[in-house]
């Protein structure tokens, strides 16, 4: 297939504004009459609120209003309505909002917030998921069962379990009996902070009792609209949510975070926009966290490496409110096998209330946690079987015709993981491994991955295409540009479909729920697939309209006409051509009448056939798309310090069709470095009072320039996906998934030490390698 506009590294549509400092983020917006909010936050992980005295704060200079959760009857949530906008009768994590001050300046609000006196009665707390799972654990939500929730979530009365997802295939007990080799291990993936560079921000202004405008740094303006509508029982059409540029999301700005709170408090000062921008500390303590899993996995195989049975249990510390994490829990169950076929599976995923900030989506959505287990276990099992890990993987890969754990048959068009593994092996193993020396061990590791986007069965994306009189086009989508490059990719897809140069397309830069097409939310790496297909449908409809108009004007049958972008030509009459742009506003004939309709069309797409998981097996057609790939790492480990240096990271991913090579590489490298951070650096920690120990950049370290490996390999395989635009599929989260197990497998190769926890702590590793000498076992 020949392409003119995709498979090219066109410059980003947003680059100019961003590099000039002119791109607007929510914190850059100033509105007339705007007031500023600051939040007083709980210093207790779990406590009853006895009293709140706001009298002193109320009389401070510039203070317009002090709002608490007293008398608040609202609980919100997209799937489980378990969260109040401000704590009502008790706090469930340190950092939870207890009161809000609205003042004329941010400083005034901050000063006044310090004058609020809150009396607490501390309660026992729990931050660890396994502790929270115990029968005698402190119960964080007494009303667990009473919350309003959408179908498909299974809480357990009298416990902290707000969702138990169970998936079964075959007969696991029999499977283990039939197995000749069994491996069983426990793993820990800590809570992480997304550390988007732009802190969460939101402005809300109530124009009447049932009408509100919201400007938010969110990946999900239509979810914000829905939830705000439910909270106040107002028409969704009266809610205007606008999203300017987003300074990074990674899932931590999806569903909702601070928007319900800002909508709630701003209602007390109608007609004033109220702005809340989180501090960096609040981003850590009071927005969303990601991951946080303790799990066990047991796999059984035949001596020849044939995988037979898998039993896994994943326990998620999902924080004070379960709504944001409930689907992550389910998604991890879909992929607990890793990219391999097992005849028998028994998978339990538990979402647990804990006294940490709420935990939600984070690049990979349950997949990195599941793959840490599956890909480490493949490494261990291979050694036990006396095979290479690659050979074991190849023997069991899910591929064309094989059935995954949820019962879906994988198609060729889902991608070729064999080729991905070959590319990673080639990148990693072509040169010989450096010889162990007095200072370092050297090792190499690989890990596979598969990823599916989690979504509602009817989650859709829309697109609007409008031709201008000069033959240029305005294209609107509601995919949020948060750095991933969706504006540029969508521009290229629209240009390819309309057979014109990308320069003639102007993609919408801001999203406004009252003007922009519907978009469920920008999550699951799905914009290319879903919004891309919506654009294709809108473009097809525009082309059809164009042909119909020309047919009427030229008195030719539609079937005789060929659309060629700027011109429409005839198949039978070589001399006929018609300039497309003359149709933009409908055609004005020389004798002065209008013909046809203006070229303005819409398109929509949702992945057909996706259903909620079946009640008993947890399976069925619950996954809408699959992407496969492999990652690898080469490391050296210091014999003196246990320090791990990553020398080379590699990824090969079957992305179906490359849209923008430079943009795609940027996603791959950025994602691998996020995986690097998780493997070696990042971990949210709590002290003995349940208060976060490291809510800042100085203590929660993220990768910097010096951490990039000397070598980065990125390989793209293009097995077209018949459901994707020009064959393209989802790719953005994927590189973050399997770098941690690849690095741990490489550390094993180097030192002989099997690790089951991240981040790797040099001191622990040093101790396990037997200190400063050759500790290879």
């Amino acid at each position, binding site marked *: 297939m020949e392409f003119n506009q995709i498979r090219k590294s066109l410059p980003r549509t947003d*680059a100019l504004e961003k590099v000039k400092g002119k791109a607007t983020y929510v914190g850059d917006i100033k509105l007339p009459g705007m007031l500023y909010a600051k939040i007083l936050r709980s210093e207790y992980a779990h406590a009853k609120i006895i009293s709140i005295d706001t009298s002193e704060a109320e009389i401070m200079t510039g203070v317009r209003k002090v709002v608490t959760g007293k008398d608040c009857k609202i609980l919100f949530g997209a799937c489980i309505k378990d969260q109040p906008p401000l704590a009502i009768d008790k706090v469930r994590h340190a950092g939870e909002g207890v009161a809000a001050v609205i003042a004329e300046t941010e400083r005034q609000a901050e000063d006044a917030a310090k004058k609020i006196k809150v009396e607490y009665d501390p309660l026992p707390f729990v931050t660890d998921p396994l502790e929270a799972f115990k029968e005698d654990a402190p119960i964080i939500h007494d009303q667990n069962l009473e919350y309003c929730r959408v179908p498909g979530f299974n809480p357990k009365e009298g416990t902290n379990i707000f969702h138990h997802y169970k998936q079964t295939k075959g007969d696991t007990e029999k499977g283990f009996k039939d197995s000749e080799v069994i491996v069983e291990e426990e793993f820990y993936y800590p809570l992480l902070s997304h550390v988007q560079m732009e802190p969460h921000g939101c402005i809300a202004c109530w124009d009447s009792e049932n009408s509100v405008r919201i400007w938010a740094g969110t990946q999900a303006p239509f979810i914000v609209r829905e939830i705000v509508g439910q909270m106040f029982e107002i028409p969704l059409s009266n809610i205007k949510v606008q999203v300017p540029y987003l300074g990074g999301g990674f899932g931590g700005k999806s569903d909702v975070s601070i928007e319900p709170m800002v909508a709630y408090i701003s209602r007390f000062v109608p007609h004033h926009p109220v702005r809340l921008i989180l501090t960096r500390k609040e981003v850590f303590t009071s927005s969303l966290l990601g991951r946080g899993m303790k799990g066990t996995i047991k796999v059984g195989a035949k001596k020849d490496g044939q995988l037979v049975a898998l039993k896994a249990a994943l326990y998620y510390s999902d924080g004070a409110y379960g709504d944001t994490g409930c689907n992550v829990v389910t998604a991890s169950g879909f992929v607990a096998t890793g990219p391999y076929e097992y005849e028998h599976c028994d998978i339990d995923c538990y979402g647990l209330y804990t006294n940490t900030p709420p935990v939600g989506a984070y690049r990979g959505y349950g997949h990195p946690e599941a793959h840490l287990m599956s890909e480490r276990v493949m490494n261990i099992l291979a050694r036990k079987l006396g095979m290479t890990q690659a050979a074991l993987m190849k023997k069991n890969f899910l591929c064309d015709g094989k059935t995954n754990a949820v019962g879906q048959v994988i198609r060729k068009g889902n991608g070729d993981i064999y080729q991905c593994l070959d590319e990673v092996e080639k990148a990693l193993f072509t040169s010989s491994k450096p010889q162990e020396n007095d200072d370092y061990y050297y090792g190499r590791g690989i890990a596979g991955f598969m990823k599916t986007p989690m979504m509602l069965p009817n989650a859709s994306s829309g697109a609007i295409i409008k031709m201008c009189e000069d033959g240029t086009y305005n294209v609107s989508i509601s995919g949020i540009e948060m750095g991933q490059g969706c504006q540029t990719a969508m521009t290229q897809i629209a240009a390819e479909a309309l057979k014109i140069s990308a320069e003639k397309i102007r993609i919408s830069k801001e999203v406004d729920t009252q003007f922009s097409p519907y978009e469920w939310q920008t999550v699951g790496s799905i914009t290319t697939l879903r919004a891309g297909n919506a654009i294709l449908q809108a473009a097809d409809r525009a082309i059809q309209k164009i042909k119909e108009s020309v047919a009427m004007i030229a008195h030719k049958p539609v079937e005789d006409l060929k659309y060629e972008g700027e011109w429409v030509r005839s198949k039978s009459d070589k001399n006929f051509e018609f300039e497309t742009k003359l149709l933009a506003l409908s055609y004005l004939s020389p004798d002065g009448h209008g013909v046809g309709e203006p070229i303005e069309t819409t398109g929509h797409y949702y992945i057909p056939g996706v259903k909620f998981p079946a009640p008993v097996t947890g399976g069925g057609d619950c996954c809408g798309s699959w992407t496969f790939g492999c990652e690898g790492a080469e490391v050296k480990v210091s014999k003196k310090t246990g320090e791990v240096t990553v020398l080379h990271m590699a990824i090969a991913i079957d992305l179906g069709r490359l849209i923008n090579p430079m943009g795609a590489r940027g996603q791959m*490298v950025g994602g691998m470095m996020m995986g690097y951070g998780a493997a070696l650096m990042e971990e949210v920690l709590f002290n003995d009072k349940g208060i976060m120990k490291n809510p800042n950049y100085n203590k929660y370290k993220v990768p910097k320039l010096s951490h990039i490996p000397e070598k980065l390999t990125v390989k793209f395989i293009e097995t077209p996906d018949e459901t994707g635009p020009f064959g393209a599929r989802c790719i953005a989260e994927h590189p973050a998934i399997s770098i941690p197990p690849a690095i741990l497998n490489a550390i094993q190769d180097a030192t002989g030490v099997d690790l089951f926890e991240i981040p790797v702590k040099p001191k622990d590793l040093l101790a396990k390698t037997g200190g400063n000498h050759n500790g290879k076992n």
Partner: protein
Amino acid sequence: MAKINVKLTVNGIQHELTVDEKETLMEILRDRLHLTGTKNACAYGACGACTVVMNNEAVRSCIVKPDKYNEKVVLTIEGISEGFDLHPIQEAFIEAGAIQCGYCTPGFVMSLYALFNSNLNATDEEIKEVLEKHICRCTGYEFIWDAAKLAQKKLQDKSNP
């Protein structure tokens, strides 16, 4: 809170302001002068997003207090190129694919501006030292490094045509 009178020049324009003693240069730029290209990401000098050039040196504007910016000449991302033009460092960031969410971009550009202005032939180690003071969560730094090297080349070519 004590008030202080300060004078400073920002992007060639002189300003006389009465500020709070705690009011940082970042707040002056963003809230008073509406130069929002300077980004607030941590407000304690750890991430580099708010970097501007003050008297030819890269500073983290979120921790610069009035006594430090009084009587100083400040350049922000809005001041390094005229009108529709781009500075070669800005061109390099676009061409190298170094921009994703864009929130850290102005800080990186301003740090490199200060570096190359004082030392056009900075070594790779010197460039790395400067970039190490910044956090980018999107790109994984590969293309930022490429942009820095490309910018240096563009500036060198410009000074020795």
